[in-house]
């Protein structure tokens, strides 16, 4: 039983990409003070719209664009309900997930068993032939680099721009931000839409690259794990990257172990990513990580004018 560390690293990064995309989006949403539990639903809608668009047009790029649009469209329903009609964020997020799973299965009917167009080789083709560092650093498709770029961009946006400062202010104290004249509802709606687009991209990465095919309910909790990673990351983009890689590592490792045919039944290996997520959440909460949450997280805001 030999597990090649280079191969493992490469597949770890690929396994981490969908949850990283979803988590970085949700991180922005939660920084704005909104808890959207519908990540799973937005991911799976992204998975099917991206898959369908890529199959119909033959272009994975159009697939990813459509996936971002699909996720964002579902997120806009959430925004309308929670920001416009002031519905309960927890219940609305759950509704989003339940609806997303059902609706995606409905669209996906005619796509099961279809193979999507391939995403193409490594972005930095020739460099990926270098020994060891080639595959590890340059061996990925463009979406992996896009996800990494997004982490950097979100970090720069949140902590280096005025718009990011306003977004964090809205997430800390919506009343105060309103009193200073910032459009709380608009900021939150934009954040929610961004989160939806990111989750959609993550879903499409699953259906177009990672698996790659369409099956009902194929996200299998990835959206929930993305939510857990945001908590685990204490709402910091860099740590979200670390959390996603950790989770990616666990899921790849357990798959390898299953394939290697070790004496533990496959089911017990398959549950490890979820157990590890719980353990990670506990460790973080234990260290008092909840004090780091945006202060207005999950609280509705209604300006009486």
């Amino acid at each position: 039983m030999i597990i090649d560390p280079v191969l493992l690293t490469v597949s770890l990064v690929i396994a981490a990409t969908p949850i990283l995309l979803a988590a970085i989006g949700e991180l922005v949403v939660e920084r704005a003070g909104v808890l959207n539990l519908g990540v799973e639903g937005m991911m799976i809608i992204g998975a099917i719209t991206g898959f369908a668009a890529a199959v119909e047009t033959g272009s994975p790029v159009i697939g990813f664009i459509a996936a971002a649009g699909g996720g964002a469209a579902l997120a806009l329903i959430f925004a309308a309900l929670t920001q416009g009609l002031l519905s309960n964020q927890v219940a609305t997020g759950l509704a989003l997930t339940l609806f997303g799973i059902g609706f995606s299965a409905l669209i996906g009917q005619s796509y099961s068993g279809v193979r999507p167009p391939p995403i193409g080789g490594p972005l930095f083709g020739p460099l990926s032939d270098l020994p060891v560092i080639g595959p590890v650093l340059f061996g990925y498709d463009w979406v992996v680099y896009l996800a990494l770029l997004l982490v950097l961009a979100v970090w720069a946006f949140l902590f280096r721009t005025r718009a990011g400062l306003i977004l964090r202010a809205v997430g800390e104290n919506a009343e105060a931000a309103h009193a200073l004249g910032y459009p709380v509802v608009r900021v939150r709606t934009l954040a929610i839409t961004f989160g939806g687009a990111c989750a959609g991209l993550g879903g499409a990465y699953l259906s177009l690259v990672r698996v790659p095919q369409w099956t009902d309910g194929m996200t299998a909790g990835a959206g929930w794990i993305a939510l857990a990673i945001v908590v685990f990351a204490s709402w910091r983009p860099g740590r979200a990257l670390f959390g996603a890689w950790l989770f990616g590592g666990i899921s790849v490792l357990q798959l390898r172990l299953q394939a290697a045919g070790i004496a533990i039944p496959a089911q017990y290996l398959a549950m490890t990513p979820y157990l590890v997520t719980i353990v990670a959440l506990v460790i973080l909460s234990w260290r008092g990580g909840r004090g780091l949450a945006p202060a207005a997280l999950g609280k509705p805001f209604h300006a009486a004018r």
Partner: protein
Amino acid sequence: MIRLERRPQPSRVWVIATPVLAVIATMIAGGILFAMLGKNPVEAIRTIFWDPLFGDYASYSRPQLLVKAGPLILIAIGLSFGFRAQIWNIGAEGQYMIGALAGASVGLAAYPTDNPLIFPAMVAAGALGGFLWAMIPALLKIRFGTSEILVSLMLVYVAQQLLSAAAFGFLRNPEGMGFPGSRNFQDFPAAHNPELIEGTGLHWGGIAAVLAVIAAQVIFARFLFGFQIRVAGEAPRAARFAGVKPGAMTLACLGISGALAGLAGIFEVTGPAGQVTTEFGSGYGFTAIIVAFLGRLNPLGILLAGLLMALTYIGGEIAQLMLSLPSAAIQAFQGMLLFFLLAFDVLANFRVRIGKARLA
């Protein structure tokens, strides 16, 4: 200009009217959806809401109503305790599976003895299994402040794998010719949960659901415990002021919902499902969330909502057969219902004003 204005107190009329409106709106939106799928919308809606009760095959489908509504109501009643206290157990599906697994294990360990205590013991084990599974998020929340939403949900996937491990491994039927799945409880009378009155679909789970509705109604209306649950949900600081211990509340609410979900699981596995299989988890635990909200977290409301949701399940199956409507359509339909419910909810707490405010 449309503005929302908070009502001094929630409108009683709208609290009752919004679920009805939401159902109507869902029928309309669902009709549009079906039309887009190339089906006749009127026929589709009739097939889902009318035919199960009064259609050509109603004698077959009508008993299914109680079969499906039983677990939904039982689980939703449990969830309503937590949701009222803003404790979000969304892993009822996992507690349902573990309840079934625990109860079935007790029963199968006794196979093939015949003892009237076997079935009660299995029911107790089922409730205990669900209860203990729900204690994991409860204790982690109390001890470490971990989100019960994420932990209970993660445990659904863990429970699914355990169920699968049981079906392939330790509970596999030794006489099953290598197929996954446990012994069928229909072949084990002491552990079987039969249809109690022929042609009704009523089994012990349905009785338990009705008892749960009555008990919850009494607890919410008359007991200090029910009052404290509401206070904890409405205003956590006021709850502490009233001497409610948040930790105890978390344990009680998650424990009750876990135990009831476990009960639903054991009644299902010994009755309609018959055996432990990998496909046992059929989404009741998630649909029950919709049932709880649609029923306004009110026991009688949940009873009605459970029956309605069961109707859409059966109607969906009929529509699948008769109109070749995809089975997933019904899930999308249920999700839509929850959207509309949440959207109309605004009417209960806010007045919608059009135009400028007038002088009082």
